[in-house]
């Protein structure tokens, strides 16, 4: 029991001069569930990508010993060959193909040069049974829930005789019931001797499942401890490297003037026009207030704010009042003209334009204001403004003409924020404003939220990060299955109350 199945020693991985991993050492014992914790951007995923062959041997320094053998992993199939399988946060399944073809994708059973479908079906059935997954091997992946898809991924890994399973945030988009199933499956796999590396932010899960935990911060391994010797606070302290109280520099600027009121808002699915995603939601927002929206993924928060902003392509109904006046918003331009802006959740898909420079991204939503004769752009005024906001938001970039894709996530996010701050705003909607950015940049964004609230802007902040929403919001609305399930004044409430409300239990 005491021998190490895996030892990673002195791993250094650089990305264009920046050390994502700096001399990380990581040891995993046979047959254990080993949790890997750390803030976003701490280097967990990078480390696992080194291990699983996504970054081939030679692009990093250091050595990997697996089963007492020095490993040279050139690609993902090398890693699979020795029995290391990774299940990424974003599932890599083919949604239009049946379960059994997904399980054997790239690894098809064959006889005499032909694909041996009966053998694959039989093996799939066996695996599904092991996963306690009651579906036919012929079911298309798109007809399965996210939790079931996750289990198919695990089945796929097991079909390759994986000795070591790496799960990257497996429960990020699962319901509580699905999490329960996954936990049981993992416990069973452990009993069968499969070693598991479990990356998660959710400390409850870590405490429930793991035997050992390693914490990584800023690309360095901070420590490896037995879980029974630790408390949650210990892990959090190891993760952030300082007391949590520092993390949220909350200031209160809430006034009693209402700036935005949303009444009886219902949003329908884009594809199925009679399926409601948001049902009859009403809320109001005051000047200078930070209104937090909490809830599980899929609770309809993003759809609600997108619809208010005019970005939702499906049907919607309800009324929106700005400063007491009813307004109609049919597209994002209408919203911007009214002084409502939205920083989207998916930065890469909806926030930045990779082929454009930092400056061009920054001024895009406000480009009308630089228009001079012949539809020309006042270059100097534009550059002047961009320079000012670069300094104001402490955007770290080699220059304003640098392509935005070369910036770190946190700095990209600041550019996306600057894009809308260049306009005069009444309401700012932030959808997961700190997802995937480092602690320092987070802190700056929180300060910025304070500053904007002080200016009298009403702020709606969607966040799935409970400590963040408790740390920054004045008032919290909790959504569940498209409805408001509770509303809290952010005083003397804790994570559990919000969580209970988010999973469907009615608040007092």
């Amino acid at each position, binding site marked *: 029991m005491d021998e190490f199945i895996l030892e990673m020693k002195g791993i250094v991985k650089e990305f264009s001069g920046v050390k994502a991993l700096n001399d990380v050492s990581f040891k995993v014992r046979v047959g254990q569930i080993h949790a890997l914790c750390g803030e976003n951007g701490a280097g967990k995923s990078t480390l696992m990508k080194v291990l699983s062959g996504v970054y081939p041997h030679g692009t990093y320094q250091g050595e990997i010993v697996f089963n007492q053998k020095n490993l040279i992993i050139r690609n993902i199939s090398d890693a699979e060959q020795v029995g290391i399988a990774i299940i990424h946060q974003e599932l890599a399944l083919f949604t239009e193909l049946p379960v059994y073809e997904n399980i054997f994708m790239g690894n098809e059973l064959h006889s005499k040069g032909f694909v041996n479908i009966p053998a694959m079906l039989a093996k799939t059935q066996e695996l599904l049974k092991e996963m306690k997954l009651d579906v036919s091997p012929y079911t298309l992946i798109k007809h399965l829930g996210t939790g079931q898809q996750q289990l198919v991924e695990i089945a796929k890994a097991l079909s390759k005789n994986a000795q070591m399973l790496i799960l990257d945030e497996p429960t990020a988009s699962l319901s509580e019931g699905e999490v329960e199933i996954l936990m049981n499956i993992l416990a069973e796999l452990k009993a069968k001797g499969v070693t598991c590396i479990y990356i998660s932010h959710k400390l409850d899960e870590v405490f429930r499942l793991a035997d050992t935990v390693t914490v990584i911060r800023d690309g360095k391994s901070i420590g490896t401890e037995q879980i029974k010797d630790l408390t949650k606070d210990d892990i959090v302290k190891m993760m952030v490297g300082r007391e949590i109280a520092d993390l949220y520099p909350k200031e209160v600027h809430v006034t009693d003037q209402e700036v935005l009121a949303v009444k009886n808002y219902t949003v329908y699915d884009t594809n199925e026009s009679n399926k409601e995603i948001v049902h009859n939601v009403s809320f109001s927002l005051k000047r200078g207030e930070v209104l937090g929206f909490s809830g599980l993924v899929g609770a309809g928060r993003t759809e609600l704010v997108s619809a208010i*902003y005019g*970005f939702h392509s499906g049907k919607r109904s309800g009324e929106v009042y700005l400063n007491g006046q009813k307004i109609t918003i049919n*597209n*994002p*331009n209408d*919203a*911007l*003209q009214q002084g409502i802006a*939205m920083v*989207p959740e998916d930065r890469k*898909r*909806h*926030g*930045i*334009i*990779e*082929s*454009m420079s930092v400056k*061009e991204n920054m001024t*895009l*939503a406000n*480009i*009308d204001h*630089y*228009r001079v004769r*012949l*539809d*020309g*752009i006042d*270059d*100097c*005024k534009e*550059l*002047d403004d961009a*320079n*000012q906001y670069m*300094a104001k938001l402490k955007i770290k970039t080699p220059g304003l003409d640098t392509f935005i894709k070369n910036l770190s996530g946190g700095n990209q996010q600041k550019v996306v924020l600057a*894009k809308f701050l260049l306009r005069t705003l009444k309401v700012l909607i932030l959808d997961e404003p700190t997802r995937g950015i480092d602690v320092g940049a987070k802190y700056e964004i929180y300060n910025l939220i304070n500053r904007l609230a002080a200016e009298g802007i009403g702020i709606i902040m969607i966040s799935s990060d409970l400590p963040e929403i408790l740390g920054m919001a004045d008032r919290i609305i909790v959504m569940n299955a498209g409805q408001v399930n509770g509303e809290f004044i952010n005083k003397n409430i804790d994570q559990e109350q919000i969580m209970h409300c988010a999973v469907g239990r009615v608040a007092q």
Partner: protein
Amino acid sequence: MTTQVENTKLATTGEKKNLFKAFFNFDVKTYTMILALVSIWLIFSIATNGDFLTSRNLSNLFRQMSITGILSIGMVFIIITGHIDLSAGSLMGLLGGIVAILNVWFKLDGIVAIGITLIVGLGIGLCNGWLVAYKKIPAFIVTLGGLLVFRGILVGMTKGTTVASLGPEIRFLGNAYLIDGIGIVLGLLAVCALIYNSFNGRKLRIQYGLSITPLSIEVVKIIFAAVLIGLVVTVLNSYQGFPVPVLIIVILAVIFSYILTKTVFGRRVYAIGGNGEAAKLCGINVPKMTLIIFAMHGLLVAIAGILLTSRLNAASVAAGQNAEMDAIAACVIGGASLAGGVGSVGGAIVGALVMSSLDNGMSMLNIETFWQYIVKGAILVIAVWFDIATKNKK
């Protein structure tokens, strides 16, 4: 405020270190493209014992490239927004046919015929744009359909015959030369515009306290451009004068280059191509922009069609066949990305010049047609290969 001053200082010291780099400030891609063009010209000059570089041939070359060039200008807008137009060649043939039929069969005045043709071009562009922007049919499909439909209409309209002998106004556009004086005046005007533009820009930048490139570099740049303009004018004048189609493409290139690089509209074109969803979130009306771009392209195709008919003094059923491929190739050689978001008018024109130079040079050498196809195709693939290879190195 202090930070800004520091920024400015940093920028100036940085630039002093890189005088050389600042001079060759433009896109590396443009630079390699021009290098490629020069080497193609060099090869042909040697192969033809200098005949390629005679003013007569260069004048012809510029005239030939003007049609592909105009198509490429419209095409590069379409490509930057992430779409494609496969119907440009057929549409050019059809619009060339319309102007000829109006003028020859219906005896309409040349100017009126041209006016109607431009409106038809704009209308068809709007129609394509509407299908793409509002009906969400992929541009590939809409224009693939157009490729067949427009050619079909042309054949049906002309009943398969050649419509020939156009009026003098129309012939003028594609064939006439301007007297020497006009060419010189145009050249001088261009140089003056450059100087004004450069110094006005410097004044404004100083006013805002922004960094500026050293004066010496600015002057060297302007002299370099002036010499180039002078050279072109001299070469054209020493044959028969400034050809009208070349004048038309120069004017269009200046206008559309301005639109793409200096205007709010142009900035939005790049935004839509780079990330349509993000552009929409920034309040940009993406369908409306797409519609306008297709309409604009239709207008440019009409101009190209009129020039083509004018130059040949006839409209035939095969006119403009495969011209869309030349235009797309020109854009891509000129650095445009079919994924959208990247490209330039200048690049597209240099690309068109490359394609036309290959046609012209190989014809001079009496190289058989099949070789011409093979060489042009190979050059396209090599150009893009080279582009991708240099990008990966960075």
